[in-house]
Structures are given as structure tokens and as C-alpha cells.
């Protein structure tokens, strides 16, 4: 696609930058309604217990207290939240009733005039518990003798299936070599600066609920209305609220149902903004906590013949969409490699931990870790260069579109070239020399590579794959574009943004199609009653889906303008030339109608409109995900995401053998997400994604004690890498356009994160290899690395 763009791909300041850089964002905490009340939570100190009694007498007597709500009342008047798999007996509410299932679970909500008063009163709520046996370890939880988290469900296993795609048994029988290992992705997450916040106001006369929330969630208004037993049009979610970071997990549906119920009950606007403790302990925002048992069959030439992956994911005590984070990776289960026989056995298990929520990549980053550890294990087994091994197994550029065994077709790619560019940019031979000279000087040093995919364009085809009762195949997004009487353009999107730069995206695309300056285009977020259908910015989809919808709407608008011009200039539509919004008759540039004239006709001069043309000037476009719409086959094959971005990470790490402390010395990421709409937005997300992966690889973990307590419930214990830990990052771009999208764009919302933890794990293992040790569990903390080395020392002495 050798198409020249005017605005797309140009390095232009984002539309959002002035607002955020001058501190002019409007977040939930910035919205103040008269008479607004505040909520504090009483949380369970037990991982598993029966609630014997709740005494709120002293709390009720405190100043400013307006209402105290327990699970008994709340569960009687609201409906259970959505569960993503077929588990009809699994109930989930914002407040516990009768039993608590994790330490930090919300038991009582206190409403008061100020948050401080609510906390004062919450301290005086007396809850009597009777502790019951708990289980924290997912493998123990799967055993028959484990205490049941939800006895009515009958088991702690929430989902299990064994998929077999291709001749797996034959591959393992015939292959010359095999390797097996276990690798574990620690319980980390994204931890945005802004915790989840929501403000709700009930208008009794209108029977209407207004909601402002820091939300990033598909079907949020629908689920909210359902849980509150309201019609969908009684809920109005305001999407014009800035969201202070989300990366997938701002799914505060339980918070919102609770606050909405309270707002109605109290008869005043009610706001709840989690503090960090509530967020990390009871905000249900932990990420995948997953181990993989991998077995790989291959020949001595390095060609992978078959792969068996058993994945066990600990979703915690309740589940919404979290089990589906085992489903999305089916979309790229063989990574960028030609592997024709794959067995995949995902198991979703519940434990007495804080529930899991969607995190950047929706399960793909852990899966990529398993795949990339596989490649390095095979290379080490064969004594082969890990780069050479990857090159041998890569899908080649000339093989696209490429159907993988699990049913998805990859749209396009050029993995060999991107890896080559990355290696050239970091000067790989020099990197090897540096590693070897560090080693010669007695240091531990390693190089790590990962080559990973980012499935993008998010539909939710893993929903029917994981739940036969769910036949959802529509996952559209949309855009409305209107031109006002002054000729100014406004794009309307139907969801909120969490820092992904959607206003820049829509303005750039509208500007590109209509040939108008994007800086002058306004982009607004409709509320949910005004909005065209959207599935929110999940699954790395908005460049593709919102970009495509904006382009579709703009093209309709442009067609209208051309029709209008042809009608008034008395020529055929095909004779109209369109440039910068102005029209003229081909070959006769003096005969034309300017943008302003066309706008005026459309808005004011019905007598000049062609027959059947609607007055005014606007167009909308609703777009289904390209390649979407299918249901899975019996053996579980389905096209999931349409587009596949690629990233190749290369880094050099040094480990202080005496302290176990790792230090990343050089880092480079080769990245191909097709046509970039705005390079700054893409690079920003990639930098952040790499930093996030550094956290998952080396620092971040929601650790639990044997007693079932969250041991890292503050930012002093849950260690997010700072600017001191994140090294200088370099990105090299490559562009393989997608044939499926409007401009050739692919997704990049999860870029960086999907391969960085895997690359770092490979680098640490390369550094430890001369000592004959390996580490297969994230995060690889100073302590974990030192323990690994220490075991080596005692073994060799």
C-alpha cells in the first residue's frame, strides 16, 4: 500500500497534550455536585469466614453519617454481576453476604458527608466473623480436599478445556527432541495513578441515573442497568470524564452498582473514590496469576513440530471476564511461529484472593512469556543461537495471510525484517562483545530476545469459544461526524478514553479523509444515551475500530458534499474534484463550490439540496470488526482478532552476583503495528508498555501470606519501577500495513508489554546460564535471583 497520507503518520502534537500538560484534565475527582456524599468501606480481614453478626449502632451515631449498607440489604435489591463463563450458580455482588471469600472483600459501606467522616464511622462498625478454611495456592485449590470457595458451584475450577489443534500426538511421536518446563507469571497488574472512582446521581422525577466514572469497560451501562433492575435508558454514563490510566482494568462495575444503589437510597449524589488500600485489596484489579506447563517437540534442525501448553490461571475469589484472559491468547497461540500441532489446556481456578481483572493484553503477555521461554529452551537444548532458531520458525512474509491451527488468520507481517532491524539498531555484534567482556570481568551478564505478537482489533470471539451459551459475534464501534453552520467539524465517539489519545485519532482520521486541518476538529465523548454503539477501548482495537468508523463516517460525509456539489454545479458526481474540502468541476477549476458554500447549502438552503438528501451535514458509521462474525467450530477453532502487530525486543542485562540485583544496560524494541496514525501516541504506549513489562518481570507482585493476607497492598510493597529502574528505551519502527483496515493500521495499545517481560526473563536466564541455573518465575526480584544463585553456590561447593 503505497498511499501518501497528509496527516496520518505525521509527527504532530496530540490533541490531548495541552489539556493534560497544563493540569486541565477533568477526572472523576474534579466533579463536585451540590450535596454530594462520600463512601468508605469496611473490608474483611479474613480470606474466608462466615459473617456472624454486623453491629452498626456506634457507627450510625457518628457525625455526618447518612447510611450504612450491608450485603443482606444490597444483595436483596440488586442482581448478581456478569460472569464470563458458564457458571450460573456463581454469584457476585459488591458487598459480601453471609460469607467472605477473600481478605479485603467489601462487607459494609458507610455513607457520610465527607470521606473522613465515613472512615471515622467505618472504624466503629463491628463485624463478627468465624474464620473458615481458605486456599491460596491454585494447585491446592484444584484438589478434591480443597475448601470450596463457592460451594454451590461445586468446584473451585471455573473453566477447563483441552483443545487439540492439528496432529499433536504424531508430532510428539515423530519429533527428534523434546523439552518440558514450567514457567510462572506472577500476580501483577497495572496500577494507574488514579484509582477507580465513580459518582452517581439518581433523579427521582426523571427516573434516571447519571454516572461519572473512570471507566474502561465494554457493556458497562447495560450491565449496570441490569444489576440495578433498571431499563437501559434509565442509566446515563458520561463518557466525557478523563480516566487517569487504566490499561484494561478500570472495570469498576461492582463499585458503580454499589454507589448507584446508595445514591438512590440516600437521595443525594454519592461519590466513591477508592483509596490505594481499597484499590489494591478490594478493588478487584489484580492481573493474571498463571503458570504454564509446556512441552515442546522439535527436530535437531530447530524446527518446532508440536507444542503442548497447560495453563492454570488463578482468578481469585470471584470472576467477571477474567477467565476469558485464557481465551484471547488462542488468537496467537503459536506466536509468530509456524507450529502446526498445538494442544492447549486452559484451566481457570478460584482461590481466596482478590479477584482478577483485565490487564493490558488480556492474557497475551503471560502466554508470550511461555512461548518465548519455549524458544530459548529449545535453542539451549540444541546449542543453537536463539535468533537463528526464531528465524527458522518464523512465518515468512510471503505466507500471509497465514492460518494458524487454532483458527485465526494472521493478516500480515514481516518478522524477519523487523528482527533484523532491531538487531542492526542495537548493534548486536557489539552487544555480544559487551556481554562477553562483562563475563570475562567476572560479572553475570545476559542478552534477552523476544519476538511476540499483539493481536489487535479486539472482538470478543473468545466468549463463544469459552461459553457455548454465548453466541455474541458483534463487537462493533462507531463514530458520528457533524459539520456545523460555521463549517467546523466535530467528531463524536461513544466511549471514554484512558489516555490512549482517541481525540487525536479521530481528528487525524477525519482530517485525512475530509482533507481538513485536524487541529481545528473537535472530538467529544457522548454520554451513553446519546452514543452510537461502542465496545470501549479494549483489545487494542481503537486505531482499527474507532479509526475505521471515523473514516467510514467521514467518507459518507465527503460523498454527501460531492453529491451536493454535483447537483448544484450541474455535473455528474464523477466529474467533481474534491480538494481540501472544496469542490470543482474536473477540468474547469473556476466552476466550483467551496467548503463554506457547501456547508451553507446543507444547513440553510433546502431548495438547493438534491432530492432525498437530509438537510444538515452529518454522517455516522458503525463498523463490525473485520473478519468478525463467526462462531467456533466443534474442535474450538475460530477467527479471533483480525490484525497482528509484531514486536522484537533485545536487551542486555547485568546481574550483581553478590546481591542478585539486575540492571538493564541496553534496551531496544523493533515494532511493526502497520500504519501509525500518530507516531507519538504509538511510541508513548510502547515506552509505557515496556516499563510495565519491566515491572512484571522484576518487581511487581501481589504476594499473599500463608494466612491469606495480601502482603503487598501498598505502593511500598507492590513495587512499580520508577524512572530510576527503567533504562533508556529505544524503538525502531517498521510498517507492514494490514490489508484489513482503512489505512493499513493495526493495534498498538498493548505494545511493549507483550514482549518485554519475556525478553527480560530470557536475558536473566542467559546471565545465569554460565552458572548452570535458570529462573522461571516472575517477578525475578533481587531476592529470587540471589536465591537461585545461592542454590548454585551451595551445589557447587
Amino acid at each position, binding site marked *: 500500500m503505497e498511499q501518501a497520507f497528509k496527516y496520518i503518520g505525521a509527527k504532530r502534537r496530540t490533541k490531548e497534550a495541552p489539556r493534560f500538560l497544563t493540569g486541565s484534565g477533568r477526572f472523576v475527582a474534579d466533579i463536585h455536585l451540590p450535596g454530594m456524599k462520600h463512601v468508605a468501606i469496611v473490608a474483611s480481614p479474613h480470606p474466608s469466614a462466615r459473617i456472624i453478626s454486623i453491629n452498626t449502632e456506634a457507627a450510625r451515631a457518628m457525625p455526618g453519617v447518612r447510611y450504612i449498607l450491608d450485603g443482606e440489604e444490597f444483595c436483596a435489591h440488586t442482581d448478581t454481576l456478569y460472569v464470563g463463563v458458564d457458571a450460573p450458580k456463581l454469584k457476585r455482588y459488591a458487598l459480601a453476604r453471609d460469607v467472605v471469600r477473600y481478605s479485603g472483600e467489601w462487607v459494609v459501606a458507610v455513607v457520610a458527608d465527607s470521606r*473522613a467522616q465515613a472512615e471515622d464511622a467505618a472504624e466503629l462498625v463491628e463485624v463478627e466473623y468465624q474464620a473458615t478454611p481458605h486456599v491460596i495456592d491454585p494447585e491446592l485449590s484444584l484438589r478434591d480436599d480443597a475448601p470450596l470457595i463457592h460451594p454451590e458451584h461445586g468446584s473451585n475450577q471455573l473453566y477447563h478445556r483441552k483443545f487439540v489443534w492439528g496432529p499433536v500426538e504424531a508430532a510428539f511421536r515423530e519429533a527428534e527432541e523434546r523439552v518440558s518446563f514450567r514457567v510462572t507469571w506472577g500476580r501483577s497488574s497495572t496500577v494507574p495513578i488514579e484509582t477507580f472512582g465513580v459518582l452517581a446521581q439518581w433523579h427521582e422525577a426523571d427516573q434516571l441515573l447519571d454516572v461519572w466514572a473512570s471507566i474502561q469497560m465494554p457493556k458497562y451501562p447495560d450491565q449496570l442497568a441490569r444489576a440495578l433492575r433498571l431499563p437501559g435508558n434509565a442509566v446515563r454514563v458520561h463518557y466525557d470524564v478523563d480516566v487517569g490510566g487504566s490499561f484494561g482494568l478500570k472495570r469498576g462495575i461492582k463499585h458503580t452498582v454499589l454507589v448507584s444503589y446508595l445514591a438512590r437510597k440516600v437521595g443525594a449524589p454519592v461519590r466513591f473514590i477508592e483509596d490505594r*488500600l481499597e484499590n489494591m485489596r478490594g478493588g478487584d484489579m489484580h492481573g493474571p496469576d498463571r503458570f504454564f506447563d509446556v512441552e515442546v517437540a522439535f527436530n535437531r534442525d530447530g524446527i518446532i513440530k508440536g507444542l503442548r501448553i497447560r495453563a492454570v490461571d488463578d482468578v481469585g475469589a470471584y470472576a467477571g471476564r477474567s477467565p476469558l484472559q485464557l481465551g484471547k491468547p488462542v488468537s496467537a497461540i503459536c506466536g509468530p511461529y509456524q507450529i502446526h500441532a498445538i494442544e492447549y489446556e486452559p484451566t481457570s481456578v478460584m482461590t481466596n484472593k482478590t479477584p482478577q481483572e483485565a490487564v493490558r493484553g488480556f492474557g497475551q503477555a503471560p502466554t508470550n512469556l511461555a512461548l518465548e521461554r519455549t524458544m530459548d529452551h529449545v535453542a539451549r537444548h540444541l546449542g543453537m543461537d536463539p535468533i537463528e532458531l526464531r528465524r527458522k520458525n518464523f512465518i515468512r512474509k510471503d505466507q500471509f495471510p497465514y492460518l494458524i491451527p487454532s483458527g485465526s488468520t494472521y493478516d500480515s507481517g514481516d518478522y524477519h525484517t523487523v528482527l533484523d532491524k532491531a538487531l542492526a539498531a542495537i548493534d548486536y555484534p557489539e552487544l555480544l562483545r559487551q556481554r562477553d567482556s562483562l563475563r570475562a570481568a567476572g560479572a553475570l551478564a545476559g542478552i534477552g530476545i523476544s519476538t511476540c505478537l499483539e493481536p489487535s482489533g479486539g472482538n470478543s470471539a473468545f466468549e463463544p469459544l469459552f461459553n457455548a451459551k454465548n453466541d455474541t459475534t458483534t463487537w462493533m464501534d462507531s463514530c458520528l461526524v457533524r459539520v456545523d453552520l460555521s463549517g467546523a467539524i466535530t467528531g463524536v465517539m461513544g466511549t471514554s478514553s484512558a489516555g490512549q489519545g482517541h481525540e487525536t485519532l479521530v481528528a487525524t482520521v477525519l482530517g485525512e479523509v475530509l482533507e481538513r486541518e485536524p487541529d481545528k476538529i473537535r472530538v467529544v465523548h457522548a454520554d451513553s444515551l446519546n452514543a452510537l454503539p461502542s465496545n470501549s477501548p479494549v483489545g487494542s482495537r481503537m486505531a482499527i475500530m474507532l479509526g475505521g468508523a471515523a473514516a467510514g463516517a467521514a467518507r459518507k460525509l465527503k460523498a454527501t458534499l460531492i453529491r451536493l456539489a454535483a447537483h448544484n454545479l450541474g455535473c455528474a458526481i464523477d466529474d467533481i474534484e474534491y480538494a481540501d474540502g472544496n469542490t470543482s468541476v474536473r477540468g474547469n477549476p473556476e466552476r466550483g463550490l467551496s467548503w463554506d458554500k457547501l456547508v451553507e447549502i446543507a444547513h440553510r438552503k433546502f431548495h438547493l439540496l438534491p432530492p432525498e438528501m437530509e438537510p444538515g451535514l452529518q454522517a455516522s458509521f458503525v463498523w463490525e470488526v473485520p473478519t468478525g462474525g463467526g462462531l467456533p467450530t466443534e474442535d474450538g477453532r475460530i477467527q479471533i482478532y483480525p490484525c497482528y502487530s509484531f514486536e522484537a525486543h533485545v536487551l542486555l542485562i547485568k546481574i550483581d552476583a553478590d546481591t542478585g540485583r539486575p540492571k538493564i544496560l541496553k534496551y531496544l524494541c523493533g515494532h511493526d503495528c502497520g500504519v501509525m496514525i500518530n507516531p507519538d501516541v504509538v511510541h508513548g504506549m510502547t515506552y509505557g508498555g515496556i516499563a510495565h513489562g519491566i515491572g512484571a518481570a522484576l518487581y511487581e507482585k501481589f504476594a499473599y501470606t500463608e494466612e491469606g493476607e495480601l*502482603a503487598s497492598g501498598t505502593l511500598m510493597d507492590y*513495587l512499580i519501577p520508577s524512572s530510576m529502574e527503567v533504562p533508556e528505551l529505544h524503538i525502531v519502527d517498521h510498517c507492514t500495513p494490514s490489508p484489513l483496515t482503512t489505512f493499513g493500521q493495526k493495534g498498538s495499545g498493548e505494545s511493549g508489554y507483550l514482549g518485554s517481560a519475556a525478553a527480560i526473563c530470557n536475558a536473566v536466564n542467559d546471565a545465569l546460564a554460565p552458572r548452570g541455573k535458570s529462573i522461571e518465575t516472575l517477578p525475578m526480584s533481587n531476592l529470587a535471583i540471589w536465591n537461585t544463585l545461592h542454590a548454585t553456590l551451595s551445589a557447587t561447593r
Partner: protein
Amino acid sequence: MKAAPFEYVRAESLDHACQMLVQHGDEAKLIAGGQSLVPMLAMRLLAPAWLVDIHGLSELQQIAIAEDQLVIGAAVRQCVADADPRLNSAVPLLSRALHWVGHAATRNRGTVGGSLAHADPSAELALSAALLEATLTLRSERGSRQVAAGDFLIGPMMTCLEADECLLEVRFPIWQEARTGSAFEEISARHGDFAIVSAAAQVGVDQTGRCTRAALAIGGAGPSALAFNDLARRLVGTRLEDGLLRDLAQQVAAKVEPTSDLQASAAYRHHLAGVLAERALLGAKRDAGLSS
């Protein structure tokens, strides 16, 4: 994370602050920079009825050199101390230690005295005070008294301060050796976190390179910062040969009694104590102009 209700009073003078302490006893808490206290209030780990703000008191703000001591007022902000050239010339170890204290943002508010009075076992300033055998001046309506750092720091988050006492200043000895070298070593989970283990060393040598004075202390590996200056004294008279330093480090490592937590096991801390003690001693030696 909102503090429980409390009364706030800005002390008009040191005497006023001491009066408030007498009046409210255990119910009152002094606040200066608030970098440790405010989070504890917010998490309701503490709920004092009174906060007495001493930060504005000029009596607590001075930095001075008095003969062979560097005197730092208790409410001197860490960033102010760090920027004072006298620190680096008189007690360079303090400059090195301050760079490990939190982050620039917390150093902008946090005070020298606040860190000492908070007495976190892994705090860098407490370690420096223990190492250099600093003297702390405590004031109350009953009068003033001076205590050695080793007696001031009595356990994790525990000092010998009585409920009516206020830390006035801390006096760090300025070594008068021909040449003095110091080093500060630390391992933390991330830069700016509390130390998993830290070690500080200072040595003095004469013109011929013979050791005339030596001090070594370990943080994060016991209930409070631990000075091992008695053991370090064995280095006096030697030429600080690397083997001697290693032996001393190992002896010290054998004496610490660390505990386990999320970031570090006791075994890891034991090991780090030896590694960092040796690095600190070697660093101090190099800083004093001797080569390894």
C-alpha cells in the same frame, strides 16, 4: 486514607512546643516534614489527638560548625542539608547517605531530625548517626540532655525520647585525621525504597597511609542501625589491607540478626551485610586515597 480527627497547632517557639507536649503527653505528636508521619496518619496507624508543628521554629533550623562537630537542627529539611557545602566538606558521609534517603520530592519536605526520631531500622540518617557516634540534644520543660546515637535508637521505630521531649539538634563529629574517607552502600528493592541492607564506613589514615581511626555500621539487619566501631578499631595501625577489610566485614555479618520480610529473607540480609560491609570498607579506603 483520611486521618482520624486531630487538633493542629503551629508551635510559636520551642518552649511552646515543649509546653504542648507536657500538656498533652502521649496524645500529642510532633510534626515537621511529615514524610513518615502523614502516611501513618492517613492509614490510621497513628491517631494522635494533637499535632504540634515545629517546622517553622528557627531554633531547629540552623546548620553550624562548632569546633569539631557539625550541628544540624532537627527541623532542617534534608534537601537543605544536602545543599549545604559544609556538609560535604565536614562530614562527607552525610552527603553520600542523603542521596539514598527517599526521593528528591520526599527530601524536599523531610527533615533530618524527623528521620532520626522516626527510627526506622533501615534509615540512612540513623545509620550515619550510629556510625559516627553522633550526639543528640533532647529538650523538654525539664531541661536539656545529650544522648549518644546508640542510646537514642533503641529499637524499630523506638527512641529514648520521653513523651514530653523534643529533638533539638544532632551533632556529628568532624574527624580530624590527616585523611578521611567514607562510603555508603545500600541495596533496596528500588532506588529510594527503604534499604534491605545498608552499610556505611569511615576510615582515617595518616600521611603514611596507616589507619588511625575506623568506623563501620550496618542498617536494615537488626532492630536498629548497628555500629561495630569496637570491631572496626582493630583496623587502627594497619594499612587497611583488603583481606583485613573482608575479614572484618565477615565478622560483622556474623553478628547481625536480621529478620525476614517480603523483599528479603534473613539469610539474604545476612549475606548482604557481609557484601555491603566489605564494599563500604573498600570504598572508604579508596576515598581516603589508598588503592586496593
